[in-house]
């Protein structure tokens, strides 16, 4: 099944994010004016209205802030139920929606420490996903 319909629309406001994932790097917009991180990408800083922005690397570490399990029917043939989608809160304070790797849906809990991994699902698209992270 084609995943074309599922690919994100890449444009000059968000290209930096997807270029980062191709390099296996999780980067987010950080305002050059006031230092505020933001996601999803936008052309202007909502805190200080600056247009000056950099794509800054995230630590890739965070916790599960919320999660759901799609139990079907699958909303698109590219996905096999059941599958979980997590909302991760990263150390930088921003939240990011993603899939989980190597963890069954029933093992996920709010507060679970996670870290980023990269999944090249197509030659032109690498998705950041998350796996359970050991702490200590």
């Amino acid at each position, binding site marked *: 099944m084609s995943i074309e319909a599922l690919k994100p*629309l890449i444009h000059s406001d968000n290209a930096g994010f997807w270029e980062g994932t191709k390099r296996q790097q999780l980067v987010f917009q950080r305002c050059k004016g006031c230092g505020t991180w933001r996601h*999803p990408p936008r052309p202007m800083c909502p805190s200080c209205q600056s247009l000056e922005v950099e794509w800054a690397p995230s630590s890739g570490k965070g916790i599960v802030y*919320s999660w759901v399990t799609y*139990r079907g029917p699958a909303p698109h043939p590219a996905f096999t139920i059941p599958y979980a989608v997590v909302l991760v809160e990263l150390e930088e304070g921003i939240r990011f*929606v993603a899939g989980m790797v190597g963890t069954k849906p029933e093992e996920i809990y*709010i507060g679970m420490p996670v870290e980023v991994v990269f999944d090249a*699902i197509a030659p032109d698209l690498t998705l950041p*996903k998350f796996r359970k992270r050991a702490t200590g």
Partner: protein
Amino acid sequence: MRSMSRKAAIVGIGTSGFSRDFGKTELRMICESVRMALDDAGLVPEDIDGMIKHSDEAPDERAIGDSMGMGNLTYFGDCRWDGAACGMVLRAAIGVTSGMANYVVVLRAFNESSGRRTKTSMRDIDQLCTSDLLQWGFHVPYGHMTEAGRVAMIVRRYMHECGVKGNDFGWVTTVCREHGARNPEGVFHGQPISIEAYLKSEMVVDPLRKLDCYEATDAAVALVITTAEKARRLKQRPAYILSAARTMVNGTEEKNGLYGPEPGALTETRRMGERLFEMAGVKPREIRVAQLDDAYAPLVPMQLEALGFCGKGEGAAFCSGGDRIRVGGQLPINTSGGSLGEGYLRSMNHVVEAVRQIRGTSTAQSEDAHLVLVSAGAGGPSSGLILGR
């Protein structure tokens, strides 16, 4: 803001009722509903000089006006988002109280079940710069692509913060179906469910069960709004608009507040409630009946909290057993059945039902329904109304 309170009223209601497939175009359903609303008010098409429609619908002012012989509009435009219902009434009230129009119709039609729809998705490529697509491209590659899935994400967080279990939401659906079973216009007429049936309902997107989610229907609704002064000369008991509000906050989308400051709460509903109660000059405990957004059952206890009907984390317990929220209870909700028990028209049917309660003509009529609240769009751009006698 308060200066507009009690200056406008809903004076006519028209509705197609709900079906899985009426076999009609949305334009025809709109025309039938508007004619019914005009008859209800005691008006004719030539009286109408304002029209507020929804941006998701293709039938426009020209098509509707031409079909109905309404050729003299001076006030018209679109509203957006599923939570627009009460905001459309607000826009109409602004039109009549400012003198820009005398009689404004507000309308929606949505053939979601049959698919006899002349406009499909808002999510076209030309919508790139709209907020939903800011988020959309970051959700869809992971299969996070249904509205139920988006709601489930905020509901899980709410459950975590408030110590609520999934089964606690069952009484919302049960009571909505109980009310809907009494309503011949709804698709669940004569079909109540038991709490046991809810508990056996399969998970669609955990933590949401199938019976937590609305089912698609075909429906149209039209309302007529005019000034309080003109309302007193028309056929029906006016449903005075004590207050109307519309709210939006950063970091949210439709049923999708993942990036805002408090995804587990309904920030927009809370702010909307504050504006509604201030403008109307009433307190939550004075409200006799509430028509809440029940597209997804857990949104009901979340709204009860956000609107101040109960404390944080107490919404599910408030609904438990159903006695407080059914007709005759402390705060009857969704007395037509709402989205879960009547049909899904993005809260337009909730506004109609609020008017019926004010008039005393509901199929699940509450005694002394002199103050009725409507809350639309929970979990995204929201709108609300307080109607009074």
